[in-house]
């Protein structure tokens, strides 16, 4: 019986290792935080930015990072150049011709927006931390 438990645990750990970051949408956030209060990690990127791709493929595919993120955070991807209107926290954010307004509300630092930018929000949607630039897998999202 004990053995079986170990095997099960092992299988589960294998499964979780193969997991990807569980990306959710801004729309789902209020409901999710209501169910369980967790901080939110927002990854602000664009399609052309190579360090964004690097962060996605090196950092967000690292098993340790993935399990940390999935366990402790709700993770959202924000394409700064999306033309779609995003409703989040009492407000509609539109595309302003260059970027979506939400990307600068969340990501701008000293009136400057950089890609990629990683933002952590508290469960109450307050900006808790912000990293400008590439985050390697050694980085911790605290």
């Amino acid at each position, binding site marked *: 019986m004990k053995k079986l438990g170990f095997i099960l645990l092992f299988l589960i750990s294998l499964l979780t290792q193969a997991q990807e970051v569980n990306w959710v949408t801004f729309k789902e956030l209020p409901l999710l935080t209501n169910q369980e209060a967790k901080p939110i990690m927002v990854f602000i990127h664009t399609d*052309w930015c*190579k*360090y964004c791709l*690097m962060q996605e493929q090196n950092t967000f595919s690292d098993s340790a990072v993935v399990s940390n993120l999935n366990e402790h955070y709700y993770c959202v991807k924000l394409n700064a150049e999306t033309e779609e209107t995003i409703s989040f*926290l009492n407000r509609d954010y539109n595309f302003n011709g260059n970027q979506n307004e*939400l990307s600068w*509300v969340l990501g701008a630092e*000293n009136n400057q*927006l950089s890609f990629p930018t990683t933002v952590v929000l508290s469960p109450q949607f*307050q900006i808790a931390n912000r990293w400008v630039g590439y985050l390697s897998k050694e980085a911790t999202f605290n």
Partner: protein
Amino acid sequence: MRNLILLSFIFLSFLLRAQSGELFGFIKSEGKGLAFTSVFLEGTSKGTFAGEDGSYKISNVPNGEYVVVAQILGFETKKQKVVIDSKSIQLDFDLKKSNNQIEEVVVSGTLKPISKSDSPVPVEVYSKEFFKKNPAPSVFEAMSNVNGVRPQLNCNVCNTGDIHINGLEGPYTMILIDGMPIVSGLSTVYGLMGIPQSLIERVEIVKGPASTLYGSEAVGGIINVITKSPQSAPVFSADVFGSSWGEINTDLGVKFKAGKKAHSLFGLNYFNFQNTIDNNGDGITDLTLQDRISVFNKWSFDRKDNRVFTIAGRYMYEDRWGGQLNWTPEFRGGDSIYGESIYTSRWETFGVYQLPVKEKVNFSFSANGHNQNSVYGDTWYIGQQSVLFGQLTWFKKIAHHDLTSGLAYRYTYYDDNSPATANPDEVHLPGVFVQDQIKLSPQSTLLLGGRYDYNTNHGNVFSPRANYKWMSKDKKNIIRLTGGNGFRVVNLFTEEHAAFTGTRALIIQEELKPETSWNGNVNYVKKFLLKNNAFLSLDLSGFYTYFFNQILPDYDSDPNAIIYDNLDGYSVSQCVSLNTDFSMRSGLNILAGVTLMDVSFTEEEVTERQVLSERFTGTWGVSYQLKKKGWKFDYTGNVYGPMLLPLLGEDDPRNPKSPYWSIQNIQATKNFKKGWELYAVVKNLLNFTPPSNSIWGAHDPFDKLNNSDTPGIDLLDPDDLGFDPAYMFAPNQGVRVNFGFRYSFNK
């Protein structure tokens, strides 16, 4: 002792509870409650978050005076003073949406020098950072850093030129400013030098047939110069450099706000070069003397719902001359001392206005006037051109379809003093276009478009377009396919500088028909993420253009003339190009590109190579950044394969082919605090210049020593080949050093 402290704490808290009140209220914006707003008393740990309906309540607030802060993402933070006096006090907040503008968008690590947009049309995007690797005063020169794009000087004396894409001549390149076709006709030859590099926010290049939005003239491709926006420009910026040859380039930019909603950007460019340098000893200036000013002003207005309204204006004046060293303006137009003197005066205005309707409809407009007063020796060319353009574009998304449709109208007025233009030439070009970008699957997109134009001189023009893009799930592989046609009406006088300079006569053998062509291209992008956080991207393209008719200059049949006629056969332009981008997080970035091309025409089953088209070009830029120390080093360059050059018949002793040639530059930039930057660049490191006999008959530009009655080439006298500056493939400017500084100030 410990107990005593504990006791006094308990006592104190009782005391406080007795003398405390509570605070409650609603946080709203535009009548709606703002859930999750954080409300807290400044300087204390007391605070809470607003509930679903925007209500909040903070109890047990000790009596006293407080500043209450309401703060939430996306809204302006508000503070209110309150006095708590053992009561329950209501304090409501009405928050405004925050409207902070971004000053600058930067990209982590080194850069976004080149990127390809998300579009199925293969658009290469070059940022202003890319052009800083090898600073140049004008957009024209800056283009030499782009693979497959070659600024070609068409005239050895007056140094005017055009921009070749993939081996196709300059007139096939459409140059847009903010998407408007205001650089056409006359200005493609005379106005390109006058677009300062400092205007560039980014440059978007499409090789091959562009989207239906731009019509069918641009067979070679389009170069779209996106100007800086008043919102994103620094408050004040300056970029000044001088070269060891005596060139001075000054760029100034000032941004200001007029009222609450208007932003304005003012830009000034001044370029001056006044030295008669003749290092090759041919008696003719190596570099044309130039005195040029360009003034730019762009306005943008904040409107409701983020609607767009921008308007810009630019004025440019240039006085340039090249020729015999002792030329002065009093010899202008005379036949004693040879000089080519060109006065250009041009104004442009352009803008976009988004209509105040629910649907997204943009009205874009532009108008420009171009005045040319030039004289080549004693041959005058006085030309005027005005272009008026308006376009209404409607953007609509329906499920997987992204529709763009619109109406366009362009009016062109052209007049010059040549006998070929007895009456002013007026063309009306109304058009209608529809384009549908269909998301077939998360990975593939199809873009179908069609455009119909009616040309008042040539009738109906229909141009279909198809683009397809596929991207792999991991975003590391992208394939794009493009097909379309081209249609263009040739105006030799505005396009062919050779018509005026030199002793060759211009002969048009028959009525020139419009040029028609089909074009297809394939593009494959592969990205690699390597170890140690390195990144490599390969971007491979193949282009094929088939011309049913093309108007090509014939320099060979008669050395005294350039003959133009319709093509009695077909012509083909094909090429393969590869762009590579290698970056390491340590600060190293290598961009390198190679293009192989074959441009030929076939008449009566004989295929010949076109003159002035190379078979091989390469460009590179190696940059290394020491971020902490503020240093950056750039090594840029290009190499061109041999081109066939126009000779003056069999007796011409010059090499019929140009050699392999290369221009290389090296730059060091040092960043200082407070927005200062110094840079030094050695340009044309290898000191490459074309042969000194490139201008044939430089000693006799008016062909006066001709001992026979025939002008130009006397076939009986091998020494008399006339005056001909058309043999031209590279700039005459040798090695020089530029020193410059940049300064930018952001409030």
